[in-house]
């Protein structure tokens, strides 16, 4: 079965109630099981250039690479193809944004966070840089899958402050990693098993800074039957609570299993038929 029949994708982005421009950018490609979300920053209106470059470059390059070879196959060195593609393309995108920022004075200092998922073979491979997040709803269980690359998360990890105290921190908006601010970037990549019924939420900090996790969990749980409405409701809640930042969400629902079709077997079956 084709991926776009098994997976339902919905992406929405909103400038929020305070900002005049939207520096977030989202892209999905249901045919290749891709979800990409970027939250741009820096420069005068250059944040949207950085996030736009990231989603545009990545969605086209990833689709090209996965047309060449399915994500769940191995590359020549025995590494999972999806991993080598994500590493290579994250590095190339970083290079492209960094180059643009260096060569165009109006883009100086721009960068972007990034969170992306590649759904393949009952798995989601997640790559992220910065504080844009991926959450997962499985049954009643709502968990944050990614861990922010932020000063606050590092302070929580080192035991300096607690989760509760982190709510009151004034250092919320400081990320420790971003795409396009240095010649090289380190991308964090992990694989997670996907079960039928899972709902994945990719979001920018404009959502999770304005709406508590419990409220997000309740909304995704209550509205998972209608992803468009769910996305609109999440954005509306962020806006109702002040909407101080741009808000973006991508929702992905797995309606059934999607095992990789083995090339050899499918060729054999094709020959047999």
């Amino acid at each position, binding site marked *: 079965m084709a991926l776009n029949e098994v997976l339902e994708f919905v992406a929405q982005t909103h400038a929020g109630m305070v900002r005049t421009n939207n520096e977030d950018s989202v892209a999905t490609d249901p045919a290749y099981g891709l979800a990409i979300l970027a939250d741009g*920053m820096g420069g005068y209106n250059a944040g949207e250039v950085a996030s736009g470059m990231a989603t545009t470059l990545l969605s086209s390059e990833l689709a090209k690479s996965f047309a060449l070879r399915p994500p769940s196959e191995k590359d020549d060195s025995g590494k999972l193809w999806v991993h080598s593609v994500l590493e290579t393309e994250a590095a190339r995108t970083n290079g492209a944004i960094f180059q643009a920022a260096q060569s165009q004075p109006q883009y100086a200092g721009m960068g972007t966070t990034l969170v992306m998922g590649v759904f393949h073979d009952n798995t989601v491979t997640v790559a992220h840089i910065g504080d844009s997040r991926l959450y997962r709803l499985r049954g009643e269980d709502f968990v944050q899958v*990614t861990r922010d690359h932020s000063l606050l998360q590092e302070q929580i990890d080192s035991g300096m402050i607690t989760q509760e105290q982190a709510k*009151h921190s004034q*250092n919320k908006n400081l990320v420790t990693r971003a795409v396009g601010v240095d010649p090289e970037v380190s991308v964090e990549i992990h694989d997670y098993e996907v079960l039928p019924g899972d709902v994945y939420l990719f979001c920018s900090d404009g959502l999770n800074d304005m709406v508590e996790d419990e409220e997000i969990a*309740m*909304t995704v749980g209550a509205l998972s*039957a209608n992803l468009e409405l769910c996305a609109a409701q999440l954005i509306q809640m962020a806006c109702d609570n002040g909407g101080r*930042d741009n808000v973006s969400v991508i929702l992905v629902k797995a309606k059934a299993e999607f095992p990789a079709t083995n090339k050899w077997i499918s060729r054999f079956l094709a020959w047999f038929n």
Partner: protein
Amino acid sequence: MAKIILSMDGTTLKDIPLNKERITIGRKPHNDIQIDNLAISGEHAVIVTILNDSFLEDMGSTNGTFVNGQQVKKHFLQNGDTIELGKYRLKYINDVPQQTSNADFEKTMILRPGAVPKAPVAPAVPAMAPPQPTAAPPQPSMPPRPTAPALPLAAIQILSGSNAGKEMELTKTLTTLGKPGVQVAVIARRPHGYFITHVEGANFPVVCGNAIGTQAHQLKDHDIIELSGIKMEFFIKN
């Protein structure tokens, strides 16, 4: 920049800007804030400031360090906290968000590598390979709850069917009505009112005799809602 206002018996002695990473407090002269009083230990406490956040730590003082009346060993300072050392009061003032009225405060910024010591970062949920149990402790990150504007409490009373007479208060942001897979609608509690929206099912909810379609519909006091043949009344509670 955050600062400390030092006072004794209600008299302000001085303002001390927290312009260094470590500001030491004690009786001995080498401290940044010297308080020459026998109730204060030689090295009494220290305030560590990282960008916009400050932490107070007791250095093993004889008489202890108190914040807002509670003894602390280590404390994450909040705007308005009062540190008590003997007869002295040190008020912590950090009103960055109030001073910055434009939206720039919220803007995400990159922290240059090396600016702050790095801590090892691991994924919140264990990755699949190598195989591990997928049930991971959730890592709830809780942003501050913005204060909800006052909205009168409303409720739904079921008028027909087996649950007739039952009342349901709409205290949550979202209340779902109906049967999953058959017909579901949701009532959203928003700052300026209650809105009903169709979620799933072949038929739309009917409000006061009219099907609402796919758009959110604001509910008025005593509106009659029909969903899967069940009638219910929306009303504002006092």
